[in-house]
């Protein structure tokens, strides 16, 4: 039998074999793989809901912003020291928006969801190029009226301005005090903002450091 014929029949036989295998595979009654161990699920990312008005408020001269994701798993030990606790799974990566006036960097904006007393509280934190808090906004919360009023008070939010990652971040100290019922949520906000500042500072410092080979040299 000539070679092309053998080749042709061989190819057809192979195709039919694949078809037969797929049919038997799809009709198999074996249950799908069901792992017994459930991995912890990370909380969903906090979106930046009003970038235009936030930029206008925090960086009025900004002409553009660029999203950036920094991986911080390499700085885990340093983060443990600076945060004073083990970083959460979400803190292995930092999502920031670098803000520019044309080509000049003005600072960065980052968002975070923190656990308030009555629901999640979403923060927008603006940090200047000098590493100080430029502004803080609560973009969403579920707290009841007296607590919400205290947390949304512009005067209280302004007390965050100028804080650095190594500030004390104490309510009643660096940050103005609030009514007692709002204290737990206020502390969650302060802790969330501080964590963001530390993550950002750690990320920027690791960039500024020369590579290991250059340091040895």
């Amino acid at each position: 039998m000539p070679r092309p014929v053998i080749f042709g029949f061989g190819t057809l036989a192979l195709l039919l074999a694949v078809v037969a295998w797929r049919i038997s595979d799809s009709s198999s009654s074996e249950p799908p793989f069901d792992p017994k161990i459930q991995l912890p699920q990370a909380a969903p990312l906090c979106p930046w809901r009003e970038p235009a008005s936030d930029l206008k408020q925090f960086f009025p001269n900004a002409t553009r912003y660029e999203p950036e994701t920094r991986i911080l798993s390499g700085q885990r030990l340093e983060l443990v020291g600076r945060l004073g606790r083990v970083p959460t799974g979400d803190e292995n990566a930092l999502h920031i928006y670098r803000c520019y006036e044309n080509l000049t960097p003005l600072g960065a904006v980052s968002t975070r969801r923190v656990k308030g007393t009555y629901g999640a509280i979403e923060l927008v934190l603006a940090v200047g190029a000098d590493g100080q808090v430029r502004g803080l906004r609560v973009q969403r919360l579920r707290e009841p009226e007296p607590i919400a009023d205290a947390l949304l008070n512009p005067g209280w939010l302004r007390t965050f301005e100028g804080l650095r990652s190594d500030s004390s971040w104490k309510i009643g100290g660096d940050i103005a005090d609030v009514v007692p019922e709002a204290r737990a949520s206020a502390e969650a906000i302060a802790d969330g903002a501080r964590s963001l500042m530390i993550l950002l500072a750690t990320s920027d410092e690791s960039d500024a450091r020369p590579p290991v080979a250059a340091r040895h040299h």
Partner: protein
Amino acid sequence: MLLLAFRNLVRRPLRSALAVSGLASALAVFACLLAFGHGYRRALSAESDRMGLQMMLVPLGCPYDAAARVLKGKSLENSLPESALEASRRDPAVAIAAPILMAATPRPDQGRADMWVGLDETALALKPWWRVKAGKPWFPDDDSVILGCDAAEVEMRAPGDRLHSPETGQELRVAGVLERSGTSDDSLFFVPLRTAQRMFGQENRLTAVAIRLRDPALLREASERLQGVPGAQIVTPTEMMGTFLNLVGAVRTLLFSIVLVAMAVGVLGVFNTLLAAVVERTNELSVMRAFGASRSQIGCLITTEALLLTGAGSAVGILLAMVGGHGIEKVVKQFVPLAPTEPLLTLTAWTLAQCVGVGALAGVVAGLYPAWRASRLPPAEASKAE
């Protein structure tokens, strides 16, 4: 004969390959459509069984829209009086009648809405997938809330935490968090029925009543009786399924007409290949006639070539459907109403047999004229050409 036909085709591999690929793509889409239609019907039926209910009492209006909105966890604009629930429970054919009140608190600035669902304990019998990941499986008091797992993640709530609804001013305590079910329950806030009615100012009002019958065979008589409830109408999952299948059927008809055009192009490709081969091989075929080959033998040779081409096209098309079918399914699922979560594309032996049959028919149709023309060649043509 088969060997000779095969050798004739491989003499012009590019032309043959083009004819095969044209037919293969048309057959691949055809196979996907057949498999998808079958899979959709099966999956929809399975989902309907999993719902655990046989009918739904909804307010007057478009019943299919209402039922689809309730099943998808969306609120309705009008509501039922609570007397509809009592009427359902009094019906001798009804085993379980579970009241549902759904309400949305829109948050346009966030591009989302909180969906609240009020239930009483009868709902548990109709929600076999209801499993708690943490906390209690039911509301310990009127101020409790059970969260779907996505809702709990977004609100960062765990059992024992407090939750406030700013729009209604209601303060609640999280009793439990549900396991992920893959249904719309994952993003819902469940509260006791009375609490939901109070929160949304809907005292003695319901969005729907989900009904399970003592015997599914009683469906017709029960639905006739319950149609009489003032302000309410009955929708059955079977009716909904029929509507969705009609919708899918309309889309399928459109797609089948596109496949028909593609098939026609494929058949024309095969026809063109064979006709060109007959014209080019006039001399050769006449010599065969001169050496004693009958008209039917020549016709049979060309038909065999056509069948070989379409056979290869069918095999490649089926293979393409198997490889690329799941990609097509992902795209199609986005446009299908109430798309079931399980895989829809199941290529059965019957589907494949239909594809092979259509391929063979295409081969016969495409080879008919070239075979007739070849068989008409007189043996004298051989000497003329020489």
